[in-house]
């Protein structure tokens, strides 16, 4: 991944994070606002319910008091205060009175608590309502919730009690309104809200006891956990109920416990707020945020791309220049303006390459001088050997001429023979140097390295076991199915030949010569190892230097030629050696060599040289 891509990716990630954070923030804030609005709506509803509840309670208390203050009730109280009063004549009175005062429940209760007449449960006359006779200031209490027994089963009533006292006897008027769907109908609700009432009249949760303004509510079982929670902890609770997978089909219910006279839970009012509009609005906001985010992202994408390009352009120039430098163009320069870090880096780079060029030139000069010196030394050394016999021969020839010896002809003949022989030596030396100077460029063709190795080894087999010298055992570890490479078979043959000769020279006492080929990533490798005397680290450093040799004889060009051939094939050669153990040469050759062979550097600062 390029630096620009990384930079662009970082920009994008940062942008995405920023957009995501903003979107999340908007969502959270929006939800909070909606929740707050919902809570305000619910609070308003609860307040409305409480006002309505209070108003109705006052109304009920007023109507019950009005009944108690009626003349007929007073007459009843007076009549019932007499000894042996006949209460049966009043058994049907509650029905008419309750109807005229629009009460759902009405009981006339005697001084002993026995029901004289009951509207909601006419057949219950004679039975006692003991709670009525318990000490209580009914006039001050006002209305309260109560579970009322009726002939249709228990009901929830908003009740009030009023007393008519005659002498020391009381007549209790117990009246009230049914708290049911009519009450829910009276609540004015916004379109997205509804109210439900659970009548906690049975020991266990009963679905039919949950009503809305139309009657029994649907899916009442979903409210059971909330009712049970409130039964355990009778405080206001809020819970969301989902009616499907779509969040817009959910409602948030605020549950208000309705306690009775003795704080027992008699009912639960549910104020439900549909989340449809909220969810819809949230969705619109979310889509809007997504749209803005997408546009922002697109804009950010373009800006990031432009910014990354702007930032990385000098870096790219630096990379290009570095690559040129690595390819040998030490004159590469970076054209970067500005005084920022990149500008300073470019200036440093330019300065560095200038220094490198200067150093290289100096080094080349030094190396060139050194090479010439080495060449001169080798030439001197090589030429000195034949020159000395030539000089001696010429001096002998001169001495024989001066002595006018009769043996001059014989001396002359011997001397000229020696001189010609030495001149041949000089020509051979010159020829070798000439050959090195004229190393040909490889002619690439499909080549099987194993085949070349086998041919070379076969060529040397007579010498490995030659009489008079310790035997050398060749070991071939050639990988089957070695890939065909593009190479010059003649040059590779020559390189391997030189390596084997070098190994044979390193094993004067015999040993094992091991050749191994194998496939490596994108090419092949060849390892030539001997069990010879090995090299010192210094020798390993300079082993590939032309005209350098660690031997008493030899031109010092063999391994230099090997290195030159490997380099011309785009490969690389390295040497590993341990004194007294042996030496291994590793050659790696690419399967194909598309690039032009490079000039092999003349200075090796490492054992392993990559070309």
């Amino acid at each position: 991944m390029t630096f620009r891509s990384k930079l662009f990716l970082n920009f994008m990630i940062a942008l995405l994070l920023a957009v995501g954070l903003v979107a999340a923030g908007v969502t959270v804030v929006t939800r909070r606002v909606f929740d707050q609005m919902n809570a305000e709506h619910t609070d308003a509803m609860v307040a409305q319910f409480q006002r309505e509840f209070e108003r109705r309670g006052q109304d009920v208390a007023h109507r019950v008091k009005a009944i108690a203050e009626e003349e007929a009730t007073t007459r009843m109280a007076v009549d019932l205060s007499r000894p042996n009063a006949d209460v049966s004549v009043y058994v049907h009175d509650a029905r008419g009175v309750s109807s005229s005062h629009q009460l759902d429940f009405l009981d006339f209760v005697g001084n002993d608590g026995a029901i004289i007449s009951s509207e909601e449960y006419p057949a219950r006359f004679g039975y006692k309502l003991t709670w009525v006779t318990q000490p209580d200031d009914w006039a001050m209490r006002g209305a309260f919730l109560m579970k009322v027994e009726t002939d249709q089963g228990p009901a929830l009533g908003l009740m009030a009690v009023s007393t008519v006292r005659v002498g020391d006897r009381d007549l209790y008027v117990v009246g009230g309104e049914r708290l049911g769907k009519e009450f829910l109908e009276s609540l004015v609700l916004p379109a997205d809200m509804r109210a439900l009432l659970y009548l906690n009249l049975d020991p266990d949760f009963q679905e039919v006891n949950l009503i809305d303004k139309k009657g029994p509510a649907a899916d009442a079982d979903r409210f059971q956990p909330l009712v049970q929670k409130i039964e355990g902890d009778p405080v206001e609770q809020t819970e969301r109920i989902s009616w499907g997978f779509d969040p817009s089909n959910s409602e948030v219910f605020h549950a208000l416990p309705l306690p009775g006279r003795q704080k027992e839970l008699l009912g639960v009012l549910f104020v439900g707020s549909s989340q449809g509009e909220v969810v819809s609005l949230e969705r619109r906001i979310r889509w809007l945020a997504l749209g803005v985010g997408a546009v922002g992202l697109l804009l950010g994408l373009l800006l990031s791309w432009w910014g990354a390009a702007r930032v990385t352009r000098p870096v790219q120039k630096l990379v290009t220049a570095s690559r040129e430098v690595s390819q040998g163009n030490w004159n590469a320069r970076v054209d970067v303006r500005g005084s920022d870090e990149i500008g300073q880096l470019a200036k440093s780079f330019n300065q560095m390459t200038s220094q490198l060029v200067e150093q290289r030139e100096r080094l080349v000069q030094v190396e060139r001088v050194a090479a010439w010196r080495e060449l001169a030394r080798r030439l001197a050394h090589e030429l000195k050997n034949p020159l000395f016999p030539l000089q001696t021969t010429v001096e002998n020839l001169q001495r024989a001429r001066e002595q006018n010896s009769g043996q001059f002809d014989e001396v002359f003949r011997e001397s000229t023979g020696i001189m010609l022989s030495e001149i041949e030596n000089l020509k051979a030396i010159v020829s070798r140097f000439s050959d090195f100077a004229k190393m040909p460029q490889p002619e690439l063709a499909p080549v099987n390295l194993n085949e070349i190795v086998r041919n070379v080894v076969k060529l040397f087999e007579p010498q490995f076991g030659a009489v008079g010298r310790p035997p050398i055992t060749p070991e071939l570890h050639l990988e089957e199915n070695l890939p065909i490479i593009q190479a010059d078979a003649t040059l590779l043959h020559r390189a391997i030949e030189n390596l084997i000769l070098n190994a044979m020279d390193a094993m004067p006492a015999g040993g094992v010569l091991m050749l191994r080929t194998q496939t490596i990533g994108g090419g092949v490798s060849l390892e030539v190892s001997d069990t010879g005397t090995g090299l010192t680290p210094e020798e390993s450093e300079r082993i590939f230097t032309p005209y350098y040799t660690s031997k008493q004889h030899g031109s010092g060009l063999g391994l230099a030629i090997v290195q030159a051939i490997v380099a011309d094939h785009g490969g690389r050669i390295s040497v590993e050696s341990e004194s007294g153990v042996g030496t291994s040469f590793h050659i790696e050759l690419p399967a194909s060599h598309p690039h032009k062979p490079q000039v092999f550097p003349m200075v090796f600062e490492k054992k392993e040289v990559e070309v």
Partner: protein
Amino acid sequence: MLRRLAATSLAIVFLLVALPARTARRPQYGGTLRVEIGAAVASLDPGVSTITPDQAFAKSQIDSLIYESRDPDGSFNGDVGSGPFKILSWQPGKQLTLQANEKFRDGRSFVDSVEITMGRSLRDRLLDLELNKSDLTGIPAQEARHAAESGVRVSQSQPDELLALVFLDDRPAINKTRAREIIGQAVSLSIDRAAVVNFLLQKVGEPTGALLPQWSSGTSFLFSTAGDVPRAKELWSQITPSPNIVLGYDSADALEQSVAERIVVNAKEAGISMTAVANPANKSPKLDARLVRLPMLSPNPANALNEILQNFSSLAGSALIPSTLPESSSPEDIYKREREALGSYRIVPLVWLPQVYGLSARVRNWTAPAPGQAWPLADVWLDTNDKSSDLKD
């Protein structure tokens, strides 16, 4: 002293002269007796059956006015018009006008005609009585006290209609004989009969635990009517699992409805699970028990008991008593038979009800009919001279 004696003598003379003059008023012929009934009789044809008991009763009363005599099996003899009255006009379901039969074998009726208006509601009938637009009408027992307090002249018969609870033979909630008895006893003990009479019937009728009224058998008081809620609870606790008793009542009968609701309240107080359901005549929901009203069809206690037991057997679904009592059975035999019939608690007698009639002030010589007897309209005469209502029967 003489003055006081003289005053007393004058008072005695006044009473001796004036009172006979008022009470010994001679019967008068003529006039139209206006009768209003609630039932609407659609046909007077003997072959056409009636739908409701009220219609059957009304048709029977009409037949007794237009036929000469009646056999013990209930069928009427003679032609239409051979009775004390002849049909003058007939509007089916609305009005029947009868004219006095001059040739009736037992003599001409006092009134010239009888005008029977049918299908009148109780409220209209009572209003017509108060407004003197009607002379005679039947009043539900539970309304008798209220009618009397409203100024209506009320006439009551001896209690001759039994209101009872019958456990049906194919009741689904109870399927074991012993359990049936325990449940029946528990329900019987849970019921406050006195409250039914005092409150629902407004003290008209008598609470009973017997199959015959006290005036008929003389032994009714031996059957306890007292409730015993603790004992009822104890008995009910022996039934496991506890069934829910479904009690049916005639949805058209206000008295049955109120009594059924009260029984449910009493049962609930004793821990007995019971539900009252309206049981219209044309529907037959699965019931465990039902409230029934059975009229006493004979003044003879043995015959009346036989008929009552027969009716109960047909209602319950199986015979309560295999044999019938002879007409001349002794009170001991009748008592024994009652005990035997009630021992299984399949019948729980509640109240004996009288027949109650509202009369206008001009109606004279009215006697509430005995069980099985027809309205004595032929004996009634109208006091056209005295329209005051100071005479009460």
